């Protein structure tokens, strides 16, 4: 397979937007770079920028490997990507509002109704509930890859509780600290105002009549894999980081327990999945949530961000229909491509998938974190046969896509600088009035040679992402 290299073209020449970096790299002694890498590791450890890994010893924390070669995106390319993201996230929010109100898109037959209404992520309790600004996904993390000839594809839309934005910000801070001379040389678009932007969006979607809303971040607690991010965002926004036990509901109003007595809460940036949010409405065994919060939400006394039930739009079985949503709601052609997707629930698709398993990537419809997937070309015969059985037993639980020739970028690894595959997760913020984002996003890189899986839980690392200003 031919891979697109972000830095070097097919003839071995350095691409225009990487030339400044390349010169710097050639002029910088390897010992200096090695020293800076060690310095970065130490700093990340001391600061405790860590994540917990499920299935490992409780409370054990790991560092996400940080790579010091930036991923650079030229300004024009970013502008197109940004337009595409705005368009896509706007359509997704319109779709969510439609699903939970008049269901025009289903009536028009653009998406099979049973696919939406029988979806495990569809929340009937949200039917007819009106949300401020009609926004469901205030924060969306859209995964984009560059493939083959260099065009971009959206791999998935994360509309529930997308993480990683803290690494985007910490990576930038680290790069600026380690290599200030690089920033003097390049005009790198800033990203540090993300927390301000987020707070502004959260305040904008407060319940009607609340002029100075109290915003909080709701975390499952210190053992959650993204706990660092939760504390980071709460601190950067200057709001309380709360756990379920800090909140209670009385007369359909949410309060937090403070040293001065109960204090009303208006907007909750929750980092807990729907299922665990309210033991009275969803999973009864959940100790993470707040009893009665759904009722307060339905009454319009509190805003949850993201809304309950957004999962119905980021499900992998709905993904193939996003271009159709863009045409239906906006009357526009999609700017960003979808990856061609086979839906195993369709007999013809299933037949094709079963016949071509070694070439395809198979994903669980509800899978996340790089778990429960088959990368055909990188798998053994046994793994392929195992998935064949899974597909035959439960076809509706899977989709399949051609294995993309993910682009790669020079990365510091054991053997020196070598190309590794990567993706990009921009964070798109919506409040109703406008949709915006900071330039770039989080670049994730697969550190294992040849691997196409970039998730941190699968040993992936991160890189600073530079959008160059003209």
């Amino acid at each position, binding site marked *: 397979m031919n891979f697109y290299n972000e830095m070097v073209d097919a003839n071995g020449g350095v691409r225009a937007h990487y030339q400044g970096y390349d010169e710097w790299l050639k002029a910088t002694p390897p010992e200096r770079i090695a020293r800076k890498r060690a310095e970065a590791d130490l700093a990340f*450890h*001391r*600061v*405790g920028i860590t994540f917990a890994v499920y299935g490992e010893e409780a409370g054990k924390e790991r560092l996400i490997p940080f790579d010091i070669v930036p991923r650079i995106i030229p300004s024009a390319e970013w502008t197109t990507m940004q337009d595409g993201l705005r368009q896509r996230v706007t359509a997704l929010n319109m779709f969510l509002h439609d699903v939970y109100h008049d269901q025009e898109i289903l009536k028009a037959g653009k998406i099979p109704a049973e696919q939406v209404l029988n979806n495990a992520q569809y929340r009937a309790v949200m039917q007819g509930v009106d949300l401020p600004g009609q926004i469901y996904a205030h924060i969306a993390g859209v995964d984009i890859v560059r493939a083959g000839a260099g065009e971009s594809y959206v791999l998935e839309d994360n509309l529930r509780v997308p993480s990683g934005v803290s690494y985007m910000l910490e990576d930038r801070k680290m790069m600026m600290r380690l290599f200030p001379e690089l920033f003097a040389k390049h005009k790198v678009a800033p990203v540090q105002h993300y927390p301000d932007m987020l707070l502004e969006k959260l305040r904008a979607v407060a319940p009607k009549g609340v002029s100075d809303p109290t915003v909080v971040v709701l975390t499952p607690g*210190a053992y959650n894999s993204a706990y660092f991010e*939760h*504390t*980071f965002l*709460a*601190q950067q926004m200057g709001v*309380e*980081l*709360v*756990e379920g*036990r*800090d909140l*209670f509901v*009385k007369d359909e109003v949410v*309060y*937090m*327990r*403070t*040293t*001065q*007595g*109960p204090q009303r809460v208006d907007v909750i940036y929750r980092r807990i999945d729907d299922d665990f949010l309210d033991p009275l409405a969803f999973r009864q065994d959940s100790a993470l949530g707040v009893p009665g919060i759904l009722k307060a939400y339905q009454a319009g006394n509190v805003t949850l961000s993201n809304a309950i039930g957004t999962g119905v739009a980021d499900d992998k079985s709905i993904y193939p229909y996003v271009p159709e949503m863009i045409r239906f709601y906006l009357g526009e052609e999609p700017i960003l491509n979808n990856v061609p997707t086979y839906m195993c629930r369709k007999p013809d698709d299933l037949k094709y998938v079963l016949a071509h398993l070694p070439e395809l990537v198979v994903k669980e419809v509800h899978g996340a974190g790089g778990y429960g997937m088959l990368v055909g070309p990188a798998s053994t015969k046994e793994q392929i046969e195992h998935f064949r059985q899974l597909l035959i037993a439960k076809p509706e639980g899977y989709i399949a896509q051609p294995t993309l020739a993910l682009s790669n970028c020079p990365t510091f690894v054991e053997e020196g600088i070598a190309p590794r595959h990567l993706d990009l997760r921009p964070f798109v913020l919506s409040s109703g009035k406008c949709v915006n984002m900071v330039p770039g996003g989080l670049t994730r890189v697969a550190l294992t040679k040849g691997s196409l899986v970039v998730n941190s839980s699968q040993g992936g690392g991160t890189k600073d992402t530079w959008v160059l200003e003209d």
Partner: protein
Amino acid sequence: MLSRTADHLFWMSRYIERAENLARLLDVTWQMSLVPQALEAANQNWNAIIALNSLEETYAKKYSTVTADNVLRFMVSDQDNFASIHSCLRLARENAHAVRGTITSEMWETLNSTWLEAREKSFEQIINGGISEFFDWVKMRSSLSRGVTIGTLLQDKAYHFIRLGTLLERADNTARILDVKYHVLRPHGDEGATDFYQWGALLRSVSAFEVYRKVYRDVITPERVTELLILRNDMPRSLHFCINGVVKNLDLIANSHSDETQRQAGLLHAQLHYARVEDILAQGLHEWLTDFMDRIYLIGDGISKDFLVPMAEAA
């Protein structure tokens, strides 16, 4: 501020202060054990440390005899002993971790790196490196975290809860150190060199040796040591100084149902303010300190109930 956040801050500062005082106590006991003395007296000193923390049972489960090495191992590095320095530093870090968004990044980094370093030190390494060096390190890390707190944290409620935890814990610890050492020293009654070293070491354990010289410019007597550590309100580790701070910080966080706790603290403060060392000694120092520690405990309990335990939903 969230009750849970206040709780973590209060205990974070208590655990740091506890680690520091424990280092002070162990250090003074270690120093005293180097002065020629009867074996019985030496053992009594080490025994007192176990008794001071009410750890007799836990200790007996692991060690059959009371020796300097065993007690030090138990109180410095034992992970099963929740009162060891190792455990205190871990618990301080865990509490900080739970509220790392509330404290400044400098505070978090200080506590986190203290714990990361402590975790790397085995008891053998500590002994080989010189145990007094280790105790100095603990004291310095505690001073550093206190300094970083004062130097970087907004003086809002978070700060007051941290100060409250520090001062309440220190009052309790100073009282304990005084109680246990006074107990050991008193019966001898001879005014020889040993006594001088013992009282001197006690003063050093609470960083009060130079202070004593400055204030009294005279020989060290048990009465003056008692006065200095209980009644001087300008001596940062004295009971009067600590309770003074407790009262001030309580006023700053007061809520609609904390009157009784404030009253208790105010009463204790007034008594320290107007007390005379002769009266305390006449009553019996041990009895007086026992009463003091009981009241400290009640104030801590009151703070817990008034502010830290998530409040009843009806309000």
